[in-house]
């Protein structure tokens, strides 16, 4: 059975194709349109998924949308009416009655498929299904904590595979009690875009939680382990299509004016001004309250299910510090986070659930890895690279980057991958910044070894150059540390077997004091790093590169960041990577088996 899952019209439009319980392909539309968080109908992503499966749209057995738009409409209508704000009401109704409500019609028309093939899956079940099905567990409790679904904002579920993929919903925390929306509001206060909660909470490492009591007046913990949101602090209708700020005068009076996003980025605590310190303290307080709230939800879920394993998902769980806290303090023995815990992952989950309904014995593929995107043809890469003309780059170089007039490029092709890995390790040891593009691109927001920017983790200068001259991302955001499984215990506190979130960059971990100097560029201000503990079976090529670097330097670890520029999606194709290579001070680019390098004439 071939099932296409679609999430669209809100954020991170994504398509996923499932065949008999196996995930054949999944991709976010942003990877093709280059518009970050693209919410539009995932035309190119669907095209890619159908190509990967060798199907035409009308040959699909089922198409499933990740939420029930008619149910969500009732909530939007209710919120719009409650706001007593005619312009807001008109904007919301235009968006909903214009397109969003008619998801079945839109899909049927865009793909030219029979409407009877199209069905809807409740939002929280779409998320829960992806988390549980891709986990390695036979049974698990599933905690979904997102922004907003139909009427659900969080859900306590459990999953088991006995003879098929089964999910039970124990409890729903309904709208308006949404941690995701509160985090979005605070994100705006901290000077970040509303959807950039993870970036905003990176400030938390620089502060102390002295505003925790004030924030607990917004996110109110309950004795039963749940929480309530006091909506009098926020304009909830601002989260609809109405635009405007959700921050009320009361909120701004309590927490201060919106932070100036142009304020200089900081790399250490001592550099913070008093004003910046206040915002860092608010972020730390928010992170603290969030972690406590999630822990209480976990305890409640554990009491209900008695499960030993936990799957967590939803956009709120894209928070490595919170996941690390759950690993350390929740009552569950093992924790799993799917590769894309946001709306994109819901497309996979919806399709898996629809597939499981039709084939009750299908258990869903246990596939925790994120490599579900498009791979690119090497012959085409080679042809494109032959046409590179460095002389023409001067007109579109990024501001502040070195002049390339006196530079040339060299191209090396390798038949043997091990030789390429050794050659790339040599580049990295020399302090050069390497763009690494291999095979299929990742689901989710993180580059995990197939679309990565890499440097030597001992070199803070290389990291600064990477941030200033390539990604233009503020230094306050932490870097990830990719490390071969065999070397992980030398650097990270803890021991093998490493929990899943530590293998896929989803949880922070403390660095052993004696190892800090060896990976100092990847150690955050709070003494943690974001590890990707890479086993050979997880990503053989990336593991080979780590090993080759370890043979040269004594530690098989690299500073790794997502292959993208700030405010752009992760690169997808070699053409995207070459554009960054041409525009920025990226020194070396490895595309599959080809190494391209800038050199002085």
């Amino acid at each position, binding site marked *: 059975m071939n099932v296409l899952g679609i999430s669209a019209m809100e954020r991170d439009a994504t398509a996923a194709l499932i065949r008999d319980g196996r995930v054949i392909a999944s991709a976010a539309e942003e990877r093709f349109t280059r518009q970050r968080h693209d919410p539009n109908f995932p035309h190119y992503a669907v095209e890619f998924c159908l190509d990967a499966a060798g199907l035409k749209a*009308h*040959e*699909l057995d089922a198409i499933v949308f990740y939420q*029930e738009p*008619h*149910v969500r*409409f*009732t*909530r939007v*209508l*209710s919120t719009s*009416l409650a706001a007593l704000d005619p312009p807001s009401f008109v904007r919301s*109704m*235009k968006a909903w*009655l*214009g397109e969003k*409500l*008619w998801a*079945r*019609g839109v899909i*049927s*028309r865009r793909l*030219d*498929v*029979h*409407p009877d*093939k199209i069905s809807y899956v409740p939002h929280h079940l779409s998320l829960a299904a992806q988390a549980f099905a891709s986990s390695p567990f036979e049974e698990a409790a599933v905690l979904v904590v997102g922004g907003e679904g139909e*009427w659900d904002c969080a859900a306590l579920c459990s999953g088991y595979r006995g003879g098929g993929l089964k999910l039970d919903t124990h409890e729903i925390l309904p709208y308006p009690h949404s941690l995701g929306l509160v985090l979005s509001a605070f994100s705006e206060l901290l000077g970040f875009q509303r959807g950039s909660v993870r970036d905003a909470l990176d400030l938390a490492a620089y502060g102390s939680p002295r505003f925790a009591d004030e924030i607990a007046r917004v996110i109110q913990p309950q004795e039963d382990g749940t929480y309530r949101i006091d909506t009098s602090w926020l304009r909830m209708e601002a989260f609809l299509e109405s635009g405007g700020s959700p921050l009320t005068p009361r909120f701004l009076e309590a927490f201060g004016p919106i932070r100036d996003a142009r304020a200089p980025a900081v790399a250490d605590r001592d550099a913070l001004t008093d004003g910046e310190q206040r915002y860092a303290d608010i972020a730390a307080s928010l992170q603290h309250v969030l972690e406590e709230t999630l822990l209480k939800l976990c305890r409640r879920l554990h009491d209900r299910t008695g499960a030993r394993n936990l799957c967590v998902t939803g956009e709120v769980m894209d928070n490595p510090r919170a996941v690390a806290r759950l690993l350390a303090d929740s009552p569950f023995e093992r924790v799993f986070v799917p590769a894309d815990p946001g709306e994109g992952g819901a497309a996979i989950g919806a399709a898996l659930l629809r597939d499981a309904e039709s084939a009750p014995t299908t258990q869903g593929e246990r596939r925790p890895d994120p490599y579900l995107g498009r791979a690119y043809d090497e012959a085409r890469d080679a042809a494109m690279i032959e046409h590179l003309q460095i002389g023409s780059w001067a007109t579109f170089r990024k501001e502040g980057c070195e002049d390339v007039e006196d530079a040339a490029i060299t191209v090396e092709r390798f038949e043997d991958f091990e030789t390429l890995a050794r050659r790339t390790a040599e580049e990295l040891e020399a302090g050069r910044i390497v763009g690494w593009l291999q095979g299929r691109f990742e689901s989710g927001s993180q580059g995990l070894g197939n679309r990565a920017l890499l440097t030597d983790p001992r070199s803070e200068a290389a990291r600064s150059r990477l941030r200033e001259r390539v990604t233009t991302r503020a230094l306050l955001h932490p870097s990830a540390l990719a490390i071969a499984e065999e070397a992980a215990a030398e650097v990270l506190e803890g021991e093998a077997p490493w929990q899943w979130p530590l293998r896929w960059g989803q949880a922070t971990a403390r660095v052993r004091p004696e190892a800090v100097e060896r990976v100092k560029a990847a150690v955050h201000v709070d003494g943690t790093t974001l590890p990707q503990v890479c086993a050979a079976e997880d990503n053989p090529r990336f593991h080979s590169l780590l090993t080759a670097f370890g043979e040269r330097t004594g530690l098989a670890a690299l500073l790794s960041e997502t292959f993208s520029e700030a405010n752009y999606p992760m690169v997808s194709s070699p053409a995207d990577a070459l554009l960054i290579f041409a525009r920025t001070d990226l020194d070396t680019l490895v595309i599959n088996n080809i190494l391209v390098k800038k050199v002085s004439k």
Partner: protein
Amino acid sequence: MTTKPEGTRPRGATFSIAIRSATEVVQAMVGSRMAWALPLAFVLLLLAGVLGVLALFPALSPFVYPLL
């Protein structure tokens, strides 16, 4: 007249999809204890339907699309 392959969208599906979606909205409103807002929803859906039909006429669509 060519025959469309099985599994493709039948001709004239727009109307049946709209009716089905409207029915789902009514059911969802009753299920969400929002039956009191059904008259408003009915007016909104009717308005959307009328505008949708008007948008099909090329001479009118430039004036109708901004409203959708």
